[in-house]
């Protein structure tokens, strides 16, 4: 297993499948009376969050605690970070405290790469700027596989602000590794200029793609993009690229609707779609904990899962 998880592209097919399989076993354990495993007892996991992201932080925190790790939450607010301490100094502090893993969320693309130079522990990227969010891609893949039974050959559409989306980058890389076929759908302004270098298809036309897809993943679109002229108005964006009930009806019977959250209901996704039976949005959150448990478990070199389980059940 890799030492750091910074990009979904770092994962080989075998690594990715091992994480998904391990998450599957850990998810089953969540239904047992004793949910906690002793695997990471005595190990320290630091959640280093430079951006507000309650949902991701709580997900990592729950994952680490269920593995019995000591968890330290280090957020930009109320810490020395707010006083202008550099990332490097923070890293050295964490190093001195003996962090075995640092989960980092940062507004600057590449911050986890820098951090990995300065700490000995494992670095897990929990979202960096407009770069990547690999555990989100893993939990998305896990959700797709749970719902649809496979990833190989699956047709996945990712719709919206691809240019600024760390979720899209990680999903394209991971789904490609796992044999799915990804199509990005967005106005041309919200696609990277060199998107043709990515291992996926690209379309500007949502409606023509809908009947051909197994999974549609809607990305959050931020109103401030309008001010930078990425699209004329939120209403026009919603008309052309939003998923409403009519469009959902154009999807194949089995197709699922995903969203990494937080949603702008009524913008990229209609409320009725978000709350429909096809939506996996709540499942994604639950699966997030299992995936993050698997990542921490495998990266921090936990013992064989089988022995752990019997111990936990005892």
């Amino acid at each position, binding site marked *: 297993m890799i030492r750091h998880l910074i990009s979904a592209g770092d994962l080989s097919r075998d690594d990715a499948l091992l994480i998904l399989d391990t998450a599957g076993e850990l998810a089953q354990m969540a239904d047992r009376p004793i949910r906690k495993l002793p695997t990471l007892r005595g190990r320290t996991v630091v959640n280093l969050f430079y951006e507000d992201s309650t949902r991701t932080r709580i997900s990592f925190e729950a994952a680490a605690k269920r593995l019995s790790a000591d968890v330290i939450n280090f957020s930009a607010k109320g810490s020395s970070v707010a006083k202008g301490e550099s*990332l490097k100094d923070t890293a050295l502090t964490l190093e001195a405290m003996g962090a075995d893993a640092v989960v980092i969320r*940062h*507004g600057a*693309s*590449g911050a986890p790469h*820098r951090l990995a130079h300065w700490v000995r522990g494992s670095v897990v990227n929990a979202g960096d700027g*407009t*770069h990547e969010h690999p555990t989100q891609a893993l939990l998305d893949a896990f959700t797709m596989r749970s719902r649809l039974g496979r990833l190989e050959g699956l047709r996945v559409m990712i719709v919206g602000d691809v240019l600024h989306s760390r979720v899209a980058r990680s999903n394209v890389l991971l789904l490609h590794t796992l044999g799915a076929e990804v199509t990005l759908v967005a106005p041309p302004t919200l696609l*990277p200029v060199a998107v043709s270098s990515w291992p996926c298809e690209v379309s500007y036309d949502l409606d023509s793609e809908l009947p051909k897809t197994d999974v549609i993943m809607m990305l959050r679109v931020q109103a401030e993009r309008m001010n930078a002229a990425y699209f004329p108005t939120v209403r026009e964006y919603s008309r052309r690229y939003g998923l409403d009930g009519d469009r959902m009806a154009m999807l194949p019977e089995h197709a699922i609707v995903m969203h990494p959250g937080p949603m702008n209901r009524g913008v990229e996704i209609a409320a009725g779609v978000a709350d429909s039976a096809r939506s996996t949005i709540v499942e994604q959150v639950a699966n997030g904990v299992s995936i993050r448990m698997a990542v921490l478990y495998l990266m921090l070199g936990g013992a064989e899962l089988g022995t752990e389980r019997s111990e936990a059940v005892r």
Partner: protein
Amino acid sequence: MTTGNGVHDGDGSGLAGGWLIRGARPLGGPQADLLLRDGVITAVGDGLSDTGAQVLDATGLIALPGLVDLHAHLREPGREDAETVLTGTAAAALGGFTAVHAMANTDPVADTAGVVEQIWRLGRRAGYCDVRPVGAVTAGLAGGQLAELGAMADSAARVRVFSDDGRCVSDAVLMRRALEYVKAFDGVIAQHAQEPRLTDGAQVNEGVISARLGLAGWPAVAEEAIIARDCLLAAHVDSALHVCHVSTAGSVEIIRWAKAKGWRVTAEVTPHHLLLTDELAVNYDPVYKVNPPLRTAADVAALREGLADGTIDCVATDHAPHPLEDKETEWQAAAFGMTGLETALRVVHTAMVETGMLDWAGVADRMSVRPAAIGRLDASGALQGSGAPVHGAALAVGSPANLVLYDPAAMDPVDPSQHASRSRNSPFAGLLLPGRVQATFLRGVPTVLEGKLAR
């Protein structure tokens, strides 16, 4: 010819008899001896008699006219933690330079006669090479109104090159006026070509790498659009435009076109843009963060072609020292810029000479003769008779004794910790590069001997 008991000890030239450089290869050609006396080259030929001169065995070394840098950031006044005129000119001398142009983005900005004279005096005191201050085009580099260009031109510093470098003079009317105004004293506007709206928050070249890294893209068109506009403006008012740090293949094309029209357009390229590509950003190490950004291999190839065929007139370092804390950060927070004075000639050796695209005469032309002419430092330039020093002259009898002796056979990894620059942000750190500057002479006085500062 004077003999060894001259009166020139006082100028620091060491022995009164000057220097006899034995067996150097001027411009990489046949071996010759050079006799330097009274600040000028007094004899060139085979088997010159030393007649009291100190002898320097230069067998195997290439002799080039002292290099001239049109573009360096010496940081003084204001950011003496990054560089001073003293450390910056020491770095320049070690790189083979005898003249450097000091960019105007100091603090305070070099936008008045007082500040440019201060920088000029600091250069004279340092003594490692001639410092030619560049004046700001607009007051405070703010892009609002013209700085007092005439006052800077008339000052003791005799400013002829004006630039808002670091920022683009993006207002078309202001650029037009600046180009027109400096015609009165044969000045040149050196433009930092960067359309600001197209590069808001930009971090790396827009393309495959920016898409992958999720860093805001810096499109080539942001540079090319300004260059095209400015070429047309320069043509319209018949003035002299110099394009700083050209970095894209498209820019080379536009400049080639403007030159074919006979317009007064010159251009420079940095050593780093001749050797490095945007792929170096993949680990987000800000030592590779620079403005304009590193581009693609295709751009590098076009820049080399452009420098070889003369479309790009010269190499300029854009030496941009930064303290460690401004580079040991996440990419977005880091400062733009790379040091370059101490590695420029070695990088050009690698990119242009080893590839067969330039011979040593070509290197002398692109790193001394032409930049001296653009900076109005050549013997026929506007500054002649003003007391300003002459640079870029041929290694011939009667020329000022500004020259560099370069060992092309050396081969060493770049070690920034050994640099005289106060900063360590060299993108070439650890890279095995050919060549070594063995000696630099400024008007007959060695500033560098045996690869070390001579004083």
